[in-house]
């Protein structure tokens, strides 16, 4: 699709590269020993790519996911997101990046149980400081986009698993993020519903959305155009499907 940048410390990523990690390292101090979850991951993801990150448990994919999602900060190395170096930002700045640049889709949906679908989708907009009318319009549009325009006032427990994940996707998209970051998005869904959700992801990708998805299921990863496999905290394989 497009070439990788020969990146050295002190460089700035090319504008086309939306995610760039350079020697990304994350150690966990467990008291008696230091667990090296990531040992220097170099990864470049271009705008409008659809990437699946795979790997056995303990390979570091959750750690990478947390770092890419700006929920965590690396021990060493650089992480550039959408032209901004985020690896050394403080807590509140990371919150701002999560709000503006990242749309999360979780395995367990992570919807607020007492809030309606509409309110759940409005949440990122609240923290973006958008007024109530603007929020309602955007959230309604996002829910309509994932086919839930008629379920906006339902609470999560009044929705099926697939519908809940659609609400989560709508919530992830509502703030027009640079990347859609999905962590085992079909882990709690049956195979039919999984296919539906993957179809939604495929459609979003076709519309220009950059999608990064962590999964351990090969058939789910097969929906992506590129599969990155981690092993022992390093990138083991990086395969692009022929277009």
């Amino acid at each position: 699709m497009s070439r990788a940048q020969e990146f050295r410390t002190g460089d700035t990523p090319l504008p086309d590269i939306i995610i760039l990690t350079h020697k990304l390292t994350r150690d966990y101090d467990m008291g008696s020993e230091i667990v090296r979850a990531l040992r220097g991951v170099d990864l470049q993801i271009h705008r409008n790519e659809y990437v699946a990150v795979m790997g056995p448990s303990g390979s570091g994919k959750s750690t990478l996911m947390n770092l890419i999602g700006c929920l965590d900060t690396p021990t060493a190395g650089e992480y550039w997101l959408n032209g901004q170096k985020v690896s050394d930002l403080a807590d509140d700045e990371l919150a701002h990046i999560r709000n503006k640049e990242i749309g999360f889709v979780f395995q367990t949906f992570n919807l607020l149980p007492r809030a309606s679908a509409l309110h759940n989708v409005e949440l990122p907009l609240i923290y973006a400081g958008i007024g109530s009318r603007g929020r309602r319009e955007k959230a309604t549009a996002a829910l309509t986009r994932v086919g839930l325009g008629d379920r906006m006032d339902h609470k999560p427990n009044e929705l099926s698993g697939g519908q809940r994940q659609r609400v989560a996707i709508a919530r992830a998209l509502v703030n027009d993020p640079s990347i859609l970051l999905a962590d085992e998005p079909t882990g709690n869904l049956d195979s039919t519903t999984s296919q539906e959700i993957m179809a939604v992801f495929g459609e979003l990708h076709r519309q220009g959305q950059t999608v990064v998805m962590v999964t351990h299921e090969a058939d789910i990863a097969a929906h992506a155009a590129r599969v990155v496999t981690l092993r022992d905290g390093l990138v083991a394989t990086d395969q692009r499907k022929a277009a």
Partner: protein
Amino acid sequence: MRVMEALRLAFHTLRTQKLKSGFALIGVFIGVTFLIGAWSIVNGINQYMVDKFAGTIIGVNTFHLRRRPNFTPNVDDSTWRAWARRPRISFSDAEAVAAGITVPVITAWQSSDNVTIEANGKEVRDADVTGATERYFEIKNLTIAQGRAFSAQEARRGVPVVVIGSEVADKLYAGRDPIGKTLRIKGEPYRVIGVVAKQGKLFGFSLDRFAVAPARSPVQDQVNPPGVVDALIVKASSVDEMRDAMDQAEGIMRSRRHLRPSQADNFVLETSEGVLTFWAGIQKILFVIGPGLVTVSLVVGGIVIMNIMLMAVAERTREIGIRKSLGARRADILRQFLAESAMIATLGGALGIGTGIMLSILVNVATPLPATVSPMSILLGVVLGGGVGVVAGVYPASRAARLDPIVALRQE
């Protein structure tokens, strides 16, 4: 997230968790209710004491010469025994003091007891029967509604005539004219010559259930040993003249009793100041106990709110994780939980203010106390209530704000 948003969210949370919120606000509710209610009642008692009680019982610019004080807060047994050993105020004491005071005053004798009055086969139990001299009516501001008061001559000669209160008149004569009729006090007959205009109640006791007869009439036997009065009442026209009159009265009594300078008075000159001092003493206690109780209940209320908020933070760890993953900053989470605890406390405070006001209205209607809610107490209630919420919320909210989003999201 702006403050309005935090408040809206807090309101929503409280509405969905009514029971928990209800428990959370009880402490603050009780504290503020007590603050408003007690404050207004103390205010009422204060006004009552100053305006009515002191004026009615003793009178303005008036003192009573008595064997011992009528209003006796916190008196121990030995003092009581000492008082009981004092000589009584005799007719001649009263006459000598009344005659010896040189500043212009009016005086009257007073001896009272609760006695049953009968007429027409009806009776009024526990009526306040007083043996007095003729100026008693003037000193006590008693307005004669019907008939007349007894004269100086009648008082001196002890003619068995009587002036009665309106309740006694109504009960014994039920609308018929009592003037000229005969009633009996402990079997002794008296001719009714006057009825006093209705006065109403004091502390719930009727002020119209009385009869006044000349002190030297047979009524003396019902209210005191022979030749003895409860009090000589002396009314001056100003405070200064009253003080002079008191000095003179004290001198006269001391010389009559042959008291050496080292000996204390064995009688008392009681003014309305005494009553007010007594009340001020009670008030002082209330002003210590009141704020103490309010503080204790507010502190307890704050601890309850803090606990419930800590519970809420623990319960909603995942929610906090979700919010953080969606871009909530520390300040946003802090505001959310602070708004919640402040709202619980303010709600408790508001309910407390409402209940306190109702309590005050109830006291106003059901008792003679003119309880009034002070605007200051409402302001204090709002400030203290909300303040307790904010203070109690700081620790739980900052714990919530500091949560690591990854850990919080993993919470089941």
